[in-house]
């Protein structure tokens, strides 16, 4: 059968189950767009290519599928880099198609030419430049396979314009065959048995759950394991939602802005079972002092995550879900009746940390940003999909919205990328039209991709944006207050648009609260609207996120309210 490159592309995309693409057309990619409109694949036209990648990221996390982007060459391609880097750090499966100038022009500094394969080599799991149309299907199938298998990540395919126009005798290719890429899913059972023995012996254990648990869809297994073994659970930022935020065994987030009890548990535990985490510096603080009394077990599908930042006593390479399933089976063979009693003292001690130092903030006449998030949690009953921008808004959301389900908290964790929240909310809403999707933003970060309001409106996506508006780049200002003697160098946003008017200008609903007593009414009105809404909360200007562990300090040495 004779087929054009573009026809093969569409055929394989359909075959891979792609129903939605986030993209932005341009010269080098015109042929693909010309073919795309002949298919039933839904295309979401964003307003900036960076947002296309963040939206695909939000889509992937809310749906559990691979997110797909389509952009043109040159600036279209370079604009995706931030989004790709963010997805790479957070291990999100994406396939990004970039247009490229025709093959004979590559290397000639042609119009809108850029070596995007070279640029994205360090921030993709893998990438390809198509050189023969005959390889097109093989490359696409490999890309999807690589993106979603093992430790997931973004994969980029660069498509020269002439390849898309070329016609070949098409023969369907088989499943991808990669010579050496073969992630190990099944953990070593002997290592797992060692963990079971430790669980029986130790008095002060803790489970540290991360994004890997979400990626391997292992939340149920985690809950079963924690309850069977009577071990409290703390989460990394990416691990929020892996374990019910209302469960008595839940400790909250650990790290720089973790809860007092989670950080104290880290310093005092004798066994840490880390599942799907990579011991980021924002979690560990001073590495020498991190869980220094504990035997550390680390379960991860990526061998490079093990022993990278923290030395581990029992490394276990494998899929989190498979490991937890096996651990649960092994526990079934043991007598676990005595475990609850054995942990009483430890759990009591944790309860004491919790009651003496709960998450807290001082009340005032101004709206407290924490209060807005608390109310948001209350009114949505913890069931909304929440995306965030980066900074204080992100940390307060992590602290005060008690996530209970996986895939409900969507944030740029590793890269910490401002401008992530709104496009990610758009992607999540596309994936889950049945869900309430809220972006918690700051007045700084919302402006980094505010243009995506138009995208939301074009596709009638009723995302809600909650702006915690303090007129500052809040987190940077916090560091300046605490570590730079209040020298607020360039963190004051002296001019900020009127977000209510801006919402209206886009055709959305704009609401504002300036006093604490208005917060609930504004949230109720905004959340119940069937339209896209911006809610502008004018909050306390110089509020800090506490607890805070200064950069490089031991995790148990916190600044508190």
């Amino acid at each position: 059968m004779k087929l054009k490159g573009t026809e093969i592309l569409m055929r394989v995309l359909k075959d891979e189950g792609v129903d939605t693409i986030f993209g932005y057309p341009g010269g080098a990619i015109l042929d693909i767009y010309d073919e795309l409109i002949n298919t039933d694949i839904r295309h979401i036209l964003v307003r900036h290519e960076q947002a296309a990648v963040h939206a695909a990221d939000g889509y992937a996390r809310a749906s559990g599928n691979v997110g797909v982007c389509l952009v043109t060459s040159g600036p279209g391609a370079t604009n995706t880099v931030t989004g790709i880097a963010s997805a790479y750090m957070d291990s999100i499966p994406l396939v990004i198609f970039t247009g490229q100038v025709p093959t004979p022009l590559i290397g000639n500094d042609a119009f809108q030419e850029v070596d995007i394969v070279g640029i994205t080599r360090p921030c993709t799991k893998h990438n390809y430049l198509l050189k023969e149309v005959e390889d097109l299907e093989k490359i696409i199938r490999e890309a999807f396979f690589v993106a979603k298998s093992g430790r997931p990540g973004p994969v980029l395919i660069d498509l020269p314009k002439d390849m898309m126009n070329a016609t070949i005798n098409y023969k369907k290719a088989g499943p991808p065959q990669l010579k050496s890429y073969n992630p190990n899913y099944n953990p070593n059972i002997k290592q797992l048995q060692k963990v079971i023995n430790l669980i029986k012996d130790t008095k002060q254990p803790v489970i540290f759950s991360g994004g890997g648990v979400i990626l391997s869809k292992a939340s149920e297994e985690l809950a079963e394991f924690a309850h069977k073994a009577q071990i409290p659970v703390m989460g990394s930022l990416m691990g929020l939602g892996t374990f019910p935020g209302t469960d008595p065994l839940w400790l909250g987030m650990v790290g720089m802005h973790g809860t007092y009890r989670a950080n104290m548990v880290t310093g005092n535990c004798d066994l840490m079972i880390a599942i799907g985490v990579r011991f980021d510096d924002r979690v560990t603080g001073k590495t020498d002092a991190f869980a220094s009394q504990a035997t550390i077990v680390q379960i991860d599908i990526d061998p490079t995550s093990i022993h990278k930042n923290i030395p581990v006593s029992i490394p276990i390479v494998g899929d989190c879900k498979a490991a937890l399933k096996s651990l649960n089976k092994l526990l079934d063979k043991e007598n676990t009746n005595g475990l609850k009693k054995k942990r009483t003292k430890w759990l009591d001690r944790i309860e004491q940390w919790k009651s003496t130092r709960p998450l807290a903030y001082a009340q005032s006449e101004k709206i407290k940003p924490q209060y807005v998030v608390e109310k948001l949690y209350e009114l949505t009953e913890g069931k909304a999909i929440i995306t965030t921008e980066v900074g204080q808004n992100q940390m307060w959301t992590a602290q005060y919205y008690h996530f209970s389900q996986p895939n409900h908290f969507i944030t740029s964790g590793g890269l910490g990328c401002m401008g992530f929240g709104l496009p990610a909310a758009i992607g999540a809403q596309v994936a889950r039209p049945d869900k309430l999707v809220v972006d918690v933003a700051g007045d700084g970060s919302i402006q980094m991709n505010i243009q995506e309001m138009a995208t939301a409106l074009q596709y009638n996506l009723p995302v809600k944006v909650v702006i915690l508006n303090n007129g500052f780049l809040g987190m940077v200002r916090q560091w300046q207050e605490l570590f730079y003697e209040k020298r607020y160098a360039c963190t004051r946003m002296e001019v900020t648009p009127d977000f209510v008017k801006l919402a209206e200008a886009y055709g959305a609903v704009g609401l504002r609260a300036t006093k604490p007593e208005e917060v609930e009414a504004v949230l109720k009105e905004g959340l119940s609207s069937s339209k896209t809404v911006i809610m502008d909360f004018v909050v306390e200007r110089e509020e800090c996120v506490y607890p805070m562990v200064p950069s490089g300090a031991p995790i148990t040495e916190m600044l508190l309210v």
Partner: protein
Amino acid sequence: MKNDKHVLSILVDNEPGVLSRISGLFSGRGYNIDSLCVAATLDPKISRITIVTTADMPVIEQIKKQLNKLINILKVYELTGSEFVEREMALIKVKAKPEYRAEILRIVDIFRCKVVDVGLNHYTIEVTGTEEKLNALLSLLKPIGVKEIVKTGIIALFREMK
């Protein structure tokens, strides 16, 4: 932790961009490359890259794991710690004034090197051997006057069982 020399032998897909992935990995993560050699194997679709790096144990473990993560890398062997043969070749251009010519040739003879180019004022010497041998030769030639030197970097293979 002790920083030791490690010889890595890496089989990779013989494709454009693969070397860049590896060198990018080393530079991006702050690892050292002391020397690097690339050429196709018997199978023209596969190349062998020999990298010599200096690192402590945790870092060398991380380097090997990171290399294994790259899709185009087929196999990573560490030769250090087992029996292997290593060789490096160098071309050394030595100043050869008449009064030193006999001396240079005597050194060439002792080290079993070859003179591959002769001029009125220079010899170019080809030498093959271990890093130690090359260094020993150089230390004798330097007082006489070395004009230029080029080295291939180390190549190495495991020893077979006898």
